[in-house]
């Protein structure tokens, strides 16, 4: 199953700290040899200021050796870190004292420049000192105090005017929120970061990536793509942990800009999009609880299938292949095989692991829905096979399905022959006419309103074009 593991592809797009949970998960699943993963963890930890963690990892890897040269190294670093910590803390504390003063909190407004002026006039607080907040937050993050880092970065963001640093602080805050598991906050942060990235064409990552890539002038469009790619990867953490996450994931990732990002720079994300689409497709059990869904989520499966089909040459894995077989090739046998594989992949995946049952349930629903739509008479045993269920269970499951879904009127089980009979009366013509014309009036009204807004010149053309529609 190692071939389908995406950790290796995803980690380069993550922050050092965000990769730890991923690696820890790899140790648990045992897809890769545990030693190797631990070595990777150690290498990762060496680069941070989390010395104790690094040292303990080292001991785990080489249980027989004393922590050799590493020890002194770590010690020295630790001393350094502690001193830096104190220095930064002092600097930051000064600012914090001022800000936490209730008078100040009241006096602060939306306008950042005004705030700065105010702080400078009354408390002698300069921009440099505020930047200390950023530095301290960053430092805290580097040794693993995520909640502290989040606090400081939040304050910094409120006060600072430097756009690059603000973006950087936003990334930092997002990472901290993710690592502390505050999903609601992280979601908010994610959304604001997304807005920031989308609105800024000369993208924030220019400063960061230019230092790493050694290309001084990064194309703005390119760096925007870069930061979107990163955002897509980071947001996986949020979306797969937040209760509303899957729907939001579909909303975001299926929007044109992000879909484009995924298609161009990271097609493997399609796995998560596909999985989210499957998971959030309506199932009999979840039906009652789920809130009304937007049209995008409703049609997610169809859209995802389209994308998967388009990107098939770039990326396939069992989950996308399952959807392909089911909705493009309509080869139920192959779909069943892919589903078997996909089940394993899902349970091993870091993000999808928790949704194993839901995934399976929804996938079965999809299969049976497609099956019933196409067939007139279905052998129950055959269908159970397709669903990867033993016969008895399959029968029970199907009965449930029929009882709880809208198929109730159309489907009947013929126990004697062990068949499901589906009678699907053809849709009356008037029904389809109604379907087709539904919403036209509203659309036209909206159109009319838009034209009215756009001025007198366009308004002349409007009556002519709108008229025929209104009549119908």
């Amino acid at each position, binding site marked *: 199953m190692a071939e389908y593991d995406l950790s290796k592809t995803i980690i380069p797009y993550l922050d050092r700290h965000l990769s730890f949970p991923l690696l820890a998960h790899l140790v648990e699943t045992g897809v890769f040899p545990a030693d190797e993963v631990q070595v990777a963890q150690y290498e990762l930890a060496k680069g941070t200021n989390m010395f104790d963690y690094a040292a303990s990892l080292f001991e785990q890897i080489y249980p027989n050796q004393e922590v050799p040269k590493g020890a002194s190294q770590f010690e020295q670093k630790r001393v350094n870190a502690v001193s830096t910590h104190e220095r930064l803390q002092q600097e930051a504390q000064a600012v914090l004292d001022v800000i936490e003063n209730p008078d100040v909190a009241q006096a602060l407004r939306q306008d950042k420049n005004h705030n700065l002026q105010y702080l400078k006039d009354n408390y002698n607080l300069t921009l440099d000192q505020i930047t200390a907040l950023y530095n301290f937050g960053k430092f805290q993050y580097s040794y693993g105090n995520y909640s502290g880092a989040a606090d400081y970065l939040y304050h910094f963001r409120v006060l600072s005017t430097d756009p690059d640093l603000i973006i950087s602080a936003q990334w930092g805050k997002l990472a901290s929120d993710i690592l502390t598991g505050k999903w609601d906050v992280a979601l908010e942060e994610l959304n604001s970061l997304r807005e920031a990235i989308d609105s800024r064409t000369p993208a924030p990552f220019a400063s960061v990536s230019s230092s790493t890539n050694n290309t001084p002038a990064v194309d703005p469009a390119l760096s925007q793509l870069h930061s979107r790619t990163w955002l897509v990867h980071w947001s996986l953490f949020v979306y797969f942990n937040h209760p509303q996450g899957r729907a939001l994931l579909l909303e975001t990732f299926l929007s*044109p*800009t992000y*879909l*484009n990002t995924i*298609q*161009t720079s990271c097609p493997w994300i399609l796995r998560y999009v596909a999985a989210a689409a499957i998971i959030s497709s309506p199932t009999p059990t979840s039906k009652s609880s789920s809130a009304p869904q937007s049209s995008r989520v409703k049609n997610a499966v169809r859209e995802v299938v389209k994308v998967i089909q*388009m990107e098939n*040459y*770039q990326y396939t894995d069992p989950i996308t292949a399952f959807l392909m077989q089911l*909705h*493009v*090739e*309509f*080869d139920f*046998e192959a779909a069943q095989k892919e589903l078997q594989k996909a089940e394993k992949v899902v349970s091993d995946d870091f993000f999808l692991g928790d949704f194993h049952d839901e995934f399976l349930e929804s996938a079965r629903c999809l299969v049976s829905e*497609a099956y019933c*739509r*196409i*067939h*007139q*008479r*279905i*052998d129950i045993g*055959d269908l159970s096979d397709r669903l990867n269920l033993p016969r008895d269970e399959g029968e029970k499951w199907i009965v449930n399905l029929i009882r709880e879904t809208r198929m109730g009127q159309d489907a009947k089980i013929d126990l004697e*022959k062990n*068949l499901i009979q*589906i009678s*699907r009366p*053809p849709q009356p*013509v*008037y029904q*389809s*006419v109604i379907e*087709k*014309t539904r919403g*036209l009036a509203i*659309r*036209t009204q909206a*159109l009319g309103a*838009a*034209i009215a807004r*756009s001025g007198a010149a*366009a308004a002349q053309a409007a009556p002519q*074009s*709108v008229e*025929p*529609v209104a009549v*119908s």
Partner: protein
Amino acid sequence: MIQRQHNVSEPIPPFYIKTLLSLESALTSAIAKEKEAKKKMNATNAKALNSMKQKVRKASKEYEQDIAKYQADPEGFEREYTSLVTREAPATTSVTRTTGGIIDPDGNDGFQPVGKGGRTMLLTAEGIFKSLQSVQEARGKKNTDRGEQIKILEKLLELATTTYQRIRVLLALISSRFDYNSSASSHMPTELWVSAQNEVDQLVAIVASNPDYIVQETTEDYDDLAERSPATEKGGIVRIRGSIISFIDRLDDEFTRSLQNIDPHGTEYVERLKDEKTLYSTICRAQAFYEQTKQDDPLSRVIMRRLEHIYSKPDAVIQALESSAESADVNPYITLASKGSTSGLIHSLCVYLYRSGNSLHRTRAMLSHIYHYALLNDFHTARDMLLMSHLQESIHSADVATQILYNRTVVQLGLCAFRSGLIKESQATLLDIFTTQRVKELLAQGVHQQRYQVLTPEQEKAEKQRQLPFHMHINTELLEAAFLVSSMLVEIPLLASIDSEELKRKAISKPFRRLLDFADRQVFTGPPESTRDHIMQASKALQDGEWERCRDLIQSIKIWSLMPEAASVKEMLAKRIQEQGLRTYLFTYAPHYNTLSLSLLAQTFSLPLRSVTSIVSKMIWNEELAASLDQAGGCIAFHRTEVTRQQQLALTIAEKVNAMAEQNEKALDAKSGSSGGWGDRADGKTGEKRGEQVQERRGRGDRTRGGSRGGARGRGARFAQGLGNRMGHTSQRAG
């Protein structure tokens, strides 16, 4: 002659004045005599006399002073002159003596061959510059004998000793070789071209091995006659006026032009084509030189030239070209050996050009790169690159050559899709170029016959120059076969699926539909001869459900043999025909069945049961077929619902209204300019087509200039048709 002497700032030799004077007197007497004789002279003689009179008068006016002086005191003038001359360098006298030999008693100042005796005097260094200059001055004049000049320069090259001299002579020699043909229509003789190419090689070698000498397009003024060396120049670098890159451009252009003019079916063409190897290595050498000297602008030009030589060629040819280039003493930084594969080579050349600032080069490099990928059957990469380059938006404003390259690229992409079995994509890509019906013209592979207006000679000439040499052509017959076959596979099932007359008017592929209608009208059909006949008969067979006949007809088309991997393409086609045959069959005959056994279908179309089930399921899912599968019985059950006329009309109205609402929305979007833009891939697809159409329209405009009426009318007609539809529909509703 006088002018020349004037230029070398020599005093006027007295004998010239003497001749002038005697001429004058002879003339006046001749005229006087003529007047007496009255019309004794014929017309030409009279003309010659007149022009002579004018020339002499002009000359004598110029040297009025000297003449006056001479007339006053002939001996004194002569003495004065000789004293002046003796002060001149001996070389000058030699020149004057040479000129003495040339002077024609008639005062005819045309250039006459320099006497052998005079030539031997030119051995000194200074003499080289002098004669060089004289040749340069004669350049571009009406009566200069270019062949003679080239001979002089060749001699001079043999005599040249110092590097500076050699560079100067080479520069002059190469340009006079290119001058040999003044008319733009004909091409340079091959021998001349070969020697010019050799000389460019020499020049590059000299300049490359002597970093002290630099050839630049603009330099400070310097004395043409003086010998210069690094020691005498400031900064230790001799800068010489000239442009190597333009020589290479010219060399390449001349090569292309000669290929355009040679009959492509003769052996001469093949012989000529062999020269491409040497030309390619010259280009490589120049590239190496510019890489050494780090001149970015010429370097990118040279790389562009190199790319243009290899982008459309298969691997084997590129390897041959590269191996000949590698045998040279200097190698550019980018070679096939260093990159490992041809696509690696092209990739690195393109990447260099992407980085360079020139947007034209970038566009062309991009198109060549896409073309190369398409040639390698890498459809997805090529398509993604084309879409991401957003060239469709801007291509209509590019120059004609780039537009041609764009058309070629798009067509190659379509062929690539066809080869990889992506029938739909292939059909969509090729459709646009085929709807214009001027494929050859758009690909610059032939001149279109204008029906309504005649091209001016200049336009015709420009058109001819644009044509690609034969070996670069994309076979249009193969292209048409690919297009028609893919149209057939898309269109025939579609035709079968729609039952109302009205819908039938909506054709996906107009050219195909037209051909099919034409074939339908024919009373008597003989055995197929041309590719078109084959495809039309195959289409009819497919319509009738005879997939085997269809397959045999398609596979017997001879032109497939020109396609690489013809066997696999044929196999792919057979498979597609089976599938589409099944679909067509179901569409056509579904009304006549109540149930249909799957296994029977599988047998009839010799497809595995599984894929039959899959195809049928797909059709049911997409609501193309009103049916459902009966798993227990292994058959399809059709639910046919009869729709009354009224209901059908209601449905049509609903659809039309829907379409209209959409149109309105689109129109508003377009007006307010807030269209989704390049958001998603689907948009990109349509955008591509739009761009193409615009581009083609533009191409048409280009070609016809004043005659864009034809194009406008075509468009107008289309719009009018649409309007008619809509009006018909409203009146229908009213009734």
